[in-house]
């Protein structure tokens, strides 16, 4: 199987790794780049657990060919915290917005992308932004509350 070198920015760090023919970005990130924050849920683009940002746009990494990200910038939930947690991560904890936690990395990436293009979203815009991310445990309400708390400046940094 042919391998292709892929150069990309991974959470702000320039990296290179080999992608297999036809390998999807999710598998490439988890196995090749060692970033386990994007989760494998359905593998067919309907659950949102594998959501990452490619050049600032949310994408389902299970449906993206790994070699197509050459030269692009990838951000995942693992890159949200720097020396301190992202305000969204703090708000998710404060609002009990996770139970089993499997959807959480994808939710965080979708929410971060939303706030970067629209820092003051309405409740409807928040629901729209996470509508591609399935959650089985929380009933969504705590997640919506957490994102709105950050957008409205109510969350503790």
């Amino acid at each position: 199987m042919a391998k292709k070198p892929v150069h990309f920015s991974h959470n702000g760090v320039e990296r290179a790794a080999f992608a297999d023919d036809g390998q999807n970005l999710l598998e490439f990130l988890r196995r090749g780049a060692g970033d386990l924050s994007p989760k494998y849920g359905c593998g067919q683009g309907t659950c949102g657990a594998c959501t990452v940002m490619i050049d600032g746009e949310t994408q389902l990494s299970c449906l993206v060919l790994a070699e197509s990200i050459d030269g692009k910038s990838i951000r995942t939930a693992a890159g949200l915290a720097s020396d301190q947690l992202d305000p969204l991560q703090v708000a998710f904890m404060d609002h009990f917005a996770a139970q089993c936690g499997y959807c959480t990395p994808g939710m965080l990436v979708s929410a971060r992308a939303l706030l970067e293009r629209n820092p003051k979203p309405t409740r409807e815009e928040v629901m729209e932004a996470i509508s591609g991310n399935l959650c089985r445990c929380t009933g969504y309400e705590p997640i919506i509350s957490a994102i709105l708390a950050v957008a409205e400046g109510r969350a503790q940094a």
Partner: protein
Amino acid sequence: MALHRGRGFAAINYPIGMNLGGDPSQALVHSNPDGKFTVALSAIDLGQGMKSVTRQIAAETLGVPVEDVYVDTADSDTGPHDMGSFASRGTHRMGNAVIQASQEARSVMLEAAAEELEVDAADLVTDGRGNIHVKGAPSRSITTMAASQAAQFKQGRTIAGRGIFLIPLSEVDPQTGEMTPVSCFAHAAMLVEVEVDDETGEVAVLDMQSAYEVGRALNPKLVEQQLRGGAWMGMSHAIWETTEPYYPSRDHGPEDFNAYVMPGPGDLAPHHISVLERPAPDGPYGGKGPGEMCANPVLPAVVNAVYDAVGVRVDDLPVTPEKVLRGLKANGGAKPRKAL
């Protein structure tokens, strides 16, 4: 063609655990040389918060800070035996086992401290902040860490405890079928408001008001989290989810998330929750366990609300648009039970 509103009510009794084959859980607690404690369980935390709750229970019983307890779960090869995390039994069964194990470990810890302080163990109390002192004389004290280290390195004692909570197998009376499968019940009541479209058959849940009686809410935020998420799942089971919606052929059933119908964040109904606390006599610090019962009252309440709205009695879940439309056709149209 119109939208009809209806209200439905349901109340449930929900059994905590099930002892049709006997229902035991075990816990092992031991201290480490740094004076902190490890609780070993084989039941698993699925996100419901069992690690948090058993950690609180162990800390409360041992008399140490909650930060000083680590709960290690879910290795059934090496942990003590447990029936598992199901039937809403976690808080009740494992919590009781953790109390028993922690009591034994605490008594050894106090004996070790008594030997160091040269006092009677019965005169010692813990302050919950990592110190053991003589009752009425806080200055005669020793830290739990120092007591643990003395036990480990000087006295040759193991500060450890074993716990089991067993609801024994209930025999069935061959004449009457009478038995006692359950020792502890939680309760809930729910009122929902729905809107039924008599043209499409679609049902929307507009509002949920509930009261859940959970014994003592050992961790109120976790209880609320479970109730909110679980009731959402109940709503989903009431009007959305099924693996076989397109009868009669199984071949038309959903195989993935594209065809398996679930509500998303745009389909939420406001849910107003009241938690009632009536501590259970046999529960750990009075706790029962919200578990599965948070979903249960939603289903009958929604079915009753649909009947109230359009007069269609659906007795087969979920209440799909097709079933509502067939019911409307059989009844000759919508027959609201009363104008709201």
